[in-house]
């Protein structure tokens, strides 16, 4: 019988939530890495028992953890002791070093500021190789491992895409979204706050901004600028890799040509500010967002937590409220904290900064909390297991 495993990263550790296909009874394990900030955990599509986790701290820096048994045990890929006499172990799985001249990007005050590695926000395992993973960093850059996390190399061509003009958003200058094209291994999308969306068509060697159609009237001196837009999240359906959906700082956007041009599909949303966006596993025109009141007030309008669903690929939206708190709710849902499973009745999941993880086993029609009181949730991923 199929089952699901939900990987939850929080401000104070990681949790793994498991259930059968009914998604009614849940086993909760954790905290794993208690006390550490867990920005993201994600399993390999090619080997579901292989899970990577970004484990970080303002005190002690970045650590990459790996599990080969579905999250039961973990190890640091580069953490083995030296074997040969005189060999100095390099601990390289924790080592993220920008390639070449580090260069500068724009700082909050408009001056230039050198790139400084802070943490990994997002891990995106290859669709076909469990040992290959892409990692999105703050300060924004993309790294890649091909040895299961043992060593990481930057893909510096991304920062060559007008990196000197990128600037940090309120959460830092983070590469938070990596989307792999299932039909073309050479095509990868990335999104950065506050630089915009980017695409490579040669496996990461060269990148170009794909921000035409985005408008940031209150954030940029030139609202139609090539880079500098605060993209919060991009989502794609596997069956239509050229169609992208975006939650921008303000505005929900759509592209039908792999990001070459975007147009707005916010429609009747109560507010088009928000963080996550995701696509139904079996209906490529069904998308989900969580409207948030504003960039100054990071909570749902009127204290009512609502997921909004469009079955028309945008513009026409309906609120989904059954089972969600409809008063006194002032949590946020962060950009990496929504996921969908691929069971026949598609499950939707999201986590809140208040420590709840919600599940809907019926495509969003009704919701219930799997857990109520975790630390603030940074990320939610789900694995559908055979």
């Amino acid at each position: 019988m199929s089952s699901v495993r939900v990987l939850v990263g929080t401000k104070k550790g990681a949790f793994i939530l498991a259930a059968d296909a009914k998604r009614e009874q849940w086993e909760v394990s954790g905290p794993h890495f208690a006390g550490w900030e867990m920005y993201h955990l994600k399993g390999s599509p090619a080997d579901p028992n292989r899970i990577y986790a970004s484990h970080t701290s303002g005190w002690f820096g970045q650590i990459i953890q790996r599990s080969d048994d579905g999250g039961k045990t973990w190890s640091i890929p580069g953490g083995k002791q030296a074997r040969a006499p005189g060999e100095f172990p390099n601990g390289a799985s924790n080592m993220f070093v920008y390639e070449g001249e580090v260069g500068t990007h724009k700082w909050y005050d408009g001056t230039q500021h050198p790139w400084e590695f802070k943490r990994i926000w997002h891990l995106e395992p290859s669709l076909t190789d469990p040992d290959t993973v892409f990692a999105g960093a703050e300060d924004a850059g993309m790294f890649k491992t091909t040895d299961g996390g043992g060593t990481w190399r930057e893909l510096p061509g991304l920062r060559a895409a007008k990196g000197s003009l990128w600037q940090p958003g309120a959460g830092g200058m983070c590469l938070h979204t990596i989307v792999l094209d299932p039909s073309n291994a050479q095509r990868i999308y990335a999104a950065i706050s506050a630089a915009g969306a980017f695409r490579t068509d040669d496996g990461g060697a060269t990148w170009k901004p794909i921000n035409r159609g985005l408008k940031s009237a209150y954030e940029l001196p030139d609202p139609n600028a090539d880079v500098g837009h605060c993209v919060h999240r991009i989502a794609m359906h596997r069956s239509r890799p050229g169609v992208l959906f975006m939650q921008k700082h303000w505005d929900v956007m759509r592209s039908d040509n792999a990001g070459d041009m975007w147009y707005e599909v916010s429609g009747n949303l109560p507010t088009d500010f928000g963080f996550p966006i995701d696509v139904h596993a079996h209906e490529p025109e069904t998308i989900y967002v969580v409207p948030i009141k504003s960039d100054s007030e990071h909570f749902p309008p009127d204290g009512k937590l609502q997921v909004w669903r469009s079955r028309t690929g945008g513009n026409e939206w309906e609120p989904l409220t059954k089972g969600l708190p409809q008063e006194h709710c002032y949590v946020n849902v962060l950009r990496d904290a929504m996921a969908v499973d691929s069971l026949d009745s598609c499950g939707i999941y999201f986590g809140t900064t208040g420590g709840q993880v919600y599940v809907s086993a019926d495509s969003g029609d009704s919701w219930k909390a799997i857990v109520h009181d975790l630390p603030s949730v940074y990320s939610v991923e789900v694995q559908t297991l055979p």
Partner: protein
Amino acid sequence: MIRVVLPFHLRTIARAEGELSLAVEDPVTIGAVLDAVESAHPALRGTIRDHVTQKRRPFVRFYACREDLSLEPADTRLPDAVVAGTEPFLIVGAMAGG
């Protein structure tokens, strides 16, 4: 043997219980002790000092014999009591909270 006390979070990363006990050849300096810590526990590379520059991470402090050695150069010799193993070398996460 040189005794080294790690902060809680680095003990969990190193999977170490209690103090570390490490052989360090003379001269026993701050840098030599950190080399020994990282050699015994490679997962700690990058958590105490930067991978490339070898500079101490800003929120990590070094104490020994009631002295703050955080700002001393890496080739600073540690006190005799640390070399003799009667006092530990303390690696500490900077205090934060409220």
